[in-house]
């Protein structure tokens, strides 16, 4: 994983609540044995019409959304299936941070492990961001701050995940260092 210190981008807004991982990446694209290339199918049901053409009325297809790395979405983002294909698809599509009032547990955990930042903000901040699509924001991982329009909002990010993000460390490496304890635990109980 690459270290992630800061994300600077305009936002794109998807107001829907309870966006589930079946919307982020529909099941029919899960037969892959790779993690690359899923961005082409991100939000497939909403981005494409029956004939497979891009729907010009869907916000992610608009010119304003091009190159946006920060997605602002409605409450309870990422609910449903545990598929890690969801953060893989978002990252491959170019999204590096998602902002919402709440995030489903498994999605949040999957996102952090792949360097996609799940940012939970309060109602007021959320409302402001929803009503100002395209605003320039900065996500500062070291400071755990979301900055826009002269506002500074702190967001929650546990120390361990922050350390992993800032240093590009993956959790597997950390777990492998605990082997001795794991072995001792196993021996004690068998």
């Amino acid at each position: 994983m690459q270290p992630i210190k800061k994300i600077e981008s305009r936002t794109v807004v998807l107001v829907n609540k309870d966006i589930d991982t079946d919307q982020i990446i529909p099941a029919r694209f899960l037969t892959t044995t790779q993690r690359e290339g899923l961005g082409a199918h991100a939000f497939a049901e909403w981005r494409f019409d029956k004939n497979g053409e891009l729907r010009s009325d869907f916000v992610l297809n608009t010119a304003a959304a091009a190159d946006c790395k920060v997605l602002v979405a409605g409450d309870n983002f990422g609910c449903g299936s545990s598929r890690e294909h969801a953060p893989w698809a978002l990252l491959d599509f170019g999204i590096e941070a998602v902002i919402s009032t709440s995030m489903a547990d498994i999605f949040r955990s999957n996102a952090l492990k792949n360097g996609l930042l799940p940012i939970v903000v309060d109602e007021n901040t959320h409302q402001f961001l929803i009503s100002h699509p395209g605003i320039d924001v900065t996500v500062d991982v070291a400071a755990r701050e979301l900055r826009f329009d002269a506002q500074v909002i702190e967001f929650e990010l546990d120390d361990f995940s922050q350390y992993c993000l800032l240093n590009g460390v993956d959790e597997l490496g950390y777990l492998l260092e605990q082997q001795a304890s794991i072995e001792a635990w196993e021996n004690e109980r068998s």
Partner: protein
Amino acid sequence: MTTSRQPRTLYEKIWDEHIVVPQTEHNPAVLYIDLHLIHEVTSPQAFSVLRSRGLRVRRPDKTLATLDHSTPTKADLLYSNMPPGPAREQVKTLIANCEEFGVPIYDLTSQHRGIVHVIGPEVGATQPGKTIVCGDSHTSTHGAFGALAFGIGTTEVGHVFATQSLLQRKSRTLAINVEGALRPGVTAKDLVLAIIGNIGVGGGTGHVIEFRGAAIEQMSMDSRMTVCNMSIEAGARAGLIAPDDTTFDYLHGRPQAPEGSEWEKAVQRWRDLVTDTDAHFDKSVTIDANAVAPMITYGTNPGMVIPIDGVVPENGGDKAFNQALAYMALEANRPLLGKPVNVVFVGSCTNSRISDLREVADVLKGRKVADAVRMLVVPGSQATKKQAEAEGLDKIFISAGAEWRESGCSMCLGMNGDNVGAGEYSVSTSNRNFEGRQGVGARTFLASPATAAAAAVTGVITDPRTLA
């Protein structure tokens, strides 16, 4: 012996028992995993990580693989006849990976194969007090046995492969007390849909739910599994039910359950797996089982649910709500009863066990599936299929005009070619009515097996209690 220990919840007892390295202010805990279930969709990338880093599966003996998500349910398409394409590649990849890493697998020819959350309990691998994970959100199902069971992502599948452990932070706890008794004709599925309708699809986020109370204690294991299965639909990390004699009776004699004196010792241990009196839950909700009716969803998430004789609610200007109704092509303030349906699906890890199939057979016996309806009955496992056939249920399904299939996830997520067509309405015993879940443009009503069967024979949404 007396201990001055603080009273603990069931969740806390299992958690404490599996801590390899405790959680600190900075670092998550290292939690030991007793059983790792895997399937073809969420494992290939994790095996690739092992390979690229020169690692092995640490405990193949605590790992169990099955094929379910992308496998065909038509017998003539199974085995070596699986049509070429990415699904076949995925199946072959899992078989090859299991061989390379020494992981036991119930492959396409195995008697034990089936939906991962159906077979774990069926073979007795799911046991009280265990920590159980799978790259699948409905791992919560196994919580019905008093096991701490939760879904993980593929990166974590790799972590468990390599270390048999996970980095975890402790969850908050939510007690759902279900008082009273379910009325006749009302099932576990109706109860869990009512609970999700009550607390909302995000109501359990960050929490482990413990289902408690008289109505839960009276339930069979099949019903408890249905309830825990859908905990994730309320956003919960896991669902739990304290083990009791019902649990032990279910497990006794299953292939992977302890035997002889080991069994006695295990049961003695398991009896301690209850929440202590006075233990603290972060949140509590009480549900009156007597007030629950057969439930059915009308929208595009499982929280959008009403009693079957209710009307579709209205929610003024809420854009997402209106989008859901538009997707379903339904209008507010109208009943669902009498609405024609195109497809009925009985299956999925929520409702594909033998008791579910018996309920459906009870309705179908001596009746016909309505002409305009296509009905699919997909058992949760090959063993369930065999049992159903031994009881003659298959003959009832087939002579009523339903299709009787091999086990698998099938129309629950429409990965294997079993789909609901665009714009079609299905009544489904599965767990998710998300847009496109059962096929592009498919419109799903989630309900119990009895309600699904009632819709199949009448061709319209029907209160199963009105079919005598």
